[in-house]
Structure formats: C-alpha cells, structure tokens
C-alpha cells in the first residue's frame, strides 16, 4: 500500500501556506506510489472549520483531531496523536513542514516510530517505488541525495522550497477526539513574551527585508519596516549576526549559519557585507537584491540585482517606488 500522510499545521486559526506545500508534495508522492494522500490536522474544538479546502490540494481524506489539549502546539501531546495515526494508517511516507513546530515534532515522531528522519528537504521524487530526497548539508554548501530504508519514510520539507499546486481529490473530512492526558505532559509553557501573533517568521516568509551593520543603529529600523509594509503581507524582517550581537534585533530574525536558513522568493540584503556564514542562510533565495555602498562587498557576488550606494538614500526611494507601484496596480 502506498498511502501518504501529510501533517498540516494550523497557525492563527487557519492552515498556512507551508502546509499546502506539504499537502501538494504528499499528493504527488502518493500518485508515484500508487496510493492516496491523507491529511492530519490537530487543534482545539472547531479545528475542522474550513479543512474541506484541502481537497483542492490533493487530500483524499482529511482527519481532524480536536481536543482542548491540542489547541496550542504541545510536543508530547502532538507526537503521541501523530504516532498513533501514522501507525494505524500503515503509511508508506509521512510529510511535515520543517517549520518551528515541525523541527521540534518530527525527531520525536521518528524516535517513537523507530524510523530515520530526513530534515529540511528541498527535493522529493519516487524512483522504483522508493523515496529519494535531496537536502542541504554544510549549511547549503553541498546537497546530499539520500534514500531512506525504512517505512514509513519520514520527511520534513523546507518551507518555500516547493510549490503549492492544486490537484483535486475527494477530501472527505473525519473528525475524531484523541486521548490527550494533560497530566502526562512533562513540559509546560508558562509565559509567552512579545508574542506578535500573526507576525511572519523569517524562515517562512516569501519576502525578507534584511538589515546589516550598515544600518548604523537600531533606531534606523523604521526604514526597513516601512519597506516591509510597502511590500505587503508574508514579508518578514531579517538581520545579520552583527546586528543581533549588537542587540539591535532579536536572534529570531538572524539569518545564517547560527541563525535561520531561509528560501524566500525575494531577499533584500541592506547594508550586509555577505560573509560566508550569512550566505549559508540565504543563498537559495530565488531572487537576491543587495544594497551596499561598497561595490566590492561579497554580497554582490550572489545578488541578482545590486545597487551601489548609501542605503539611507536608496531605502526611502525604494519604499516610495513600491508604494506607488502598489497604488497603481
């Protein structure tokens, strides 16, 4: 049997973009394996609202586990429900997103199922009924093509590396109530600080406006914020390590070797020199734009488009041009 399970995350009450990428790949792999793709969604009561939509992205069946104890992501509760479903369904492959939740959840699931895990994969294909995936190693300085010799093959997919393609399937919805025992959980969230609900995480944004030491100080970030707002939704702010170490921006925004690895459609590097550890985090962006006053800065070697100039002159103009483009369209 070649059925495939896609674990889809809900965020802020809905299924997000990265989840549709996971669903689309699961569907493509299911076809390759001669089976069908099922979706699993977990959440609090009412989580099933709107999941019928997933049919458009290839879900033959959508299972929704609703429980008060699943309203927020809780590693042990989510892992126990997911492992149960993965076992019962006898799946050939299980896909998740390599999002913050996926990175926390997938290894636990792997250990519980006793199967290896391919993390952060950027390509998936079925060859002779087996799954072959490609994933970056050495922070993207190389790619490894690997074959997993276990069932189910467990894969977490890098956000933004796959298109979300529409392809209709039956999409029957089945809601179930999993057994969740809050008393059995050994970790507990006691506080959430600065929880900017709805803010786009840098690793999942489709566009990133990233600032480096060239920004001079934290007070100048309003220039990048204005550009972000002009560019529209799904845009996140990023930062170089120099900026994070100086305390101008939180580490959550750092891109690179000791920060996040990102693959947005558009990456704007503003006042960033392009050190190898920074490039490690963003070199797979589809389009890279660099703004730097030093024409010899290494960032220009990876940039598709560059402007040599003072960012304090270029940024306001760029924001204004993009605003007028948006207003005109």
């Amino acid at each position: 049997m070649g059925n495939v399970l896609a674990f889809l995350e809900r965020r802020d009450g809905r299924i997000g973009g990265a989840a549709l990428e996971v669903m689309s790949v699961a569907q493509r792999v299911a076809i390759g394996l001669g089976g069908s793709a099922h979706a699993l969604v977990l959440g609090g009561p009412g989580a099933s609202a709107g999941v019928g939509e997933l049919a458009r992205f290839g879900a033959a069946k959508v299972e929704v586990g609703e429980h008060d104890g699943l309203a927020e992501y809780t590693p042990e509760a989510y892992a126990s429900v997911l492992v149960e479903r993965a076992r019962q369904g006898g799946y050939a492959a299980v896909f998740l997103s390599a999002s913050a939740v996926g990175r926390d959840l997938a290894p636990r699931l792997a250990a519980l199922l006793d199967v290896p895990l391919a993390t952060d994969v950027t390509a998936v294909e079925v060859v002779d009924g087996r799954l072959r995936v490609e994933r970056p190693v050495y922070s993207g300085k190389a790619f490894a093509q690997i074959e997993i010799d276990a069932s189910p093959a467990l894969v977490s997919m890098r956000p933004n590396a796959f298109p979300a393609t529409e392809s209709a399937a039956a999409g029957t919805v089945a809601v179930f109530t999993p057994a969740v025992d809050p008393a059995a959980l050994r970790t507990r969230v006691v506080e959430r600080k600065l929880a900017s609900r709805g803010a786009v995480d840098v690793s999942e944004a489709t566009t990133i406006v990233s600032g480096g030491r060239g920004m001079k100080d934290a007070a100048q970030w309003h220039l990048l914020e204005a550009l972000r707002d002009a560019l529209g939704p799904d845009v996140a702010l990023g930062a170089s390590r120099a900026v994070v170490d100086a305390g101008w921006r939180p580490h959550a925004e750092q891109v690179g070797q000791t920060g996040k690895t990102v693959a947005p459609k558009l990456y704007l590097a503003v006042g960033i020199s392009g050190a190898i550890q920074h490039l490690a985090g963003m070199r797979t962006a589809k389009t890279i734009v660099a703004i730097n006053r030093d024409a010899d800065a290494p960032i220009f070697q990876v940039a598709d488009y560059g402007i040599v100039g003072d960012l304090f002159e270029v940024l306001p103009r760029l924001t204004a041009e993009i605003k007028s483009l948006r207003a005109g369209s």
Partner: protein
Amino acid sequence: MRTIVCLKRVPDTETRIRIDSSGVKVDPAGVKYVISPYDEYAIELALRAKEAAGQGEVELVTYGEPAAQEALRKGLAMGADSALLLTGEPGLDGLATAKTLAAELRGADAPLVLFGVKAADDDLQQVGPMFATLVGRACVTGVASFTLQADKVTCEREVDGATEVVEAQLPAVLTITKGPHEPRLASLKGIMAAKKKPLVEKPAAASPARVRILALREPAPRPAGRIVGQGPDAVPELVRLLRDEAKAI
C-alpha cells in the same frame, strides 16, 4: 550535580567544502575542524549552571573519529571537567547517532543533558529530541538560556518571533541555540589544566544507519547578477526588473 553536553566536531564554518572522488564524501584535505557552534553555546550554559550552583561537574561526550579528541580538549580548556569519546563513524542517520549516544547515556545520573539545536555539518536538527524520546526524558528545543531548580528547569526558548518560558520536569534534555551568553574563550591556564583532565576513549556501541547517501553535489552556481546602478536614481530600474523580469514583487 552533573551536566552532560553532547558535542560534535565539524568543519570550521569558513571552510570550503569539496566533494571527493567517491562522490558521496567530503574531501578532508585542508579542512580545519571546530566544535559545532551551537554546541559551544551548550558548553557555555552548562558551565554557567555549574557556577550558579557553586558545585557540580560538566562532562562532554562525543561520538566520532579519534581526531575528535582535539575538540574535547578544547571544551575541557573552556572549563568542562571530563570527556568521553565514543569512537566510530556517525553518518546522516540521526536516529542511529541518537541510539548510539543513548546506549551509553541511558540512565545517566545527570538532571540535564544538553545538545546543540543543529550540527554545522549534516544540519540534521534532530539528535537531541530523538535522544530524549529514546531515553524517556522531557525535552525542550531551541533554548537560549535556562535556570535549574531542584525539580525542574525553566527555559527561555525562541518561537516564531516571540520568546516562550517553558518549564520542564527533570531529568531533561535541552537543545541549545544562540542566546545572550557568548561562549567563553579558553584561557592559557584553562588550556594547561585541560591536559590533565580525564578524557576516556572507547569504541561506540554503534547502531546501524538506515539512510544511504546516493550522491553529494555542490549547489548550482547562481547566475551572474548585475549592478543595476548607483544610488537612489537606480531604484526605478530595480523596481521594474523585480516586477517584469524576476516577477518577485
């Protein structure tokens, strides 16, 4: 109180990676090795926990080639008390690595076992939570700093643009990310002291890998970019290119 830190020896982040003639391995010639960056943060937090408690030991554990001794000595020079080298060849199967470490450390008398969030060579981001699951410890990932109490550990962790404070029951596994405390540099005194600290080496009870590397390849080179122009006057052309050519806005 003992704190265990699992660390890995990896190529320096400045290193150029060359694929050898086998096509499935990296050519080790000329590669300089370091402790994986996040593991250095883990050592730093372990040393701070010991200093805060005023007692205890920090033990380093690695599974790798005999040459990983050098990385352990460096950690000892930072201030760790003892080190264990399980000799063998870890690969791209993180679960096999986690099992190998679990075979040695299951039931270890240490309230905390620390890992880095990800190793800078294979980028798996999985060995810590797998180890925790295998040995039945609570686990918090992406921890920037923590405070240890008698029966629990309170962690600051990073999530999508916010920070969470999470309490975990002991014994626990924490995977450490870059946080407010930069790893200390080894002092000359530390380096001298490290030479006399216990470093035990023994063969690992290795678990077989179930992930096979078919090929390693270099990333496709990015097509040559272009300088659109100088200063703010280049902006309209940049916007036009982003819209019409790159279709990025």
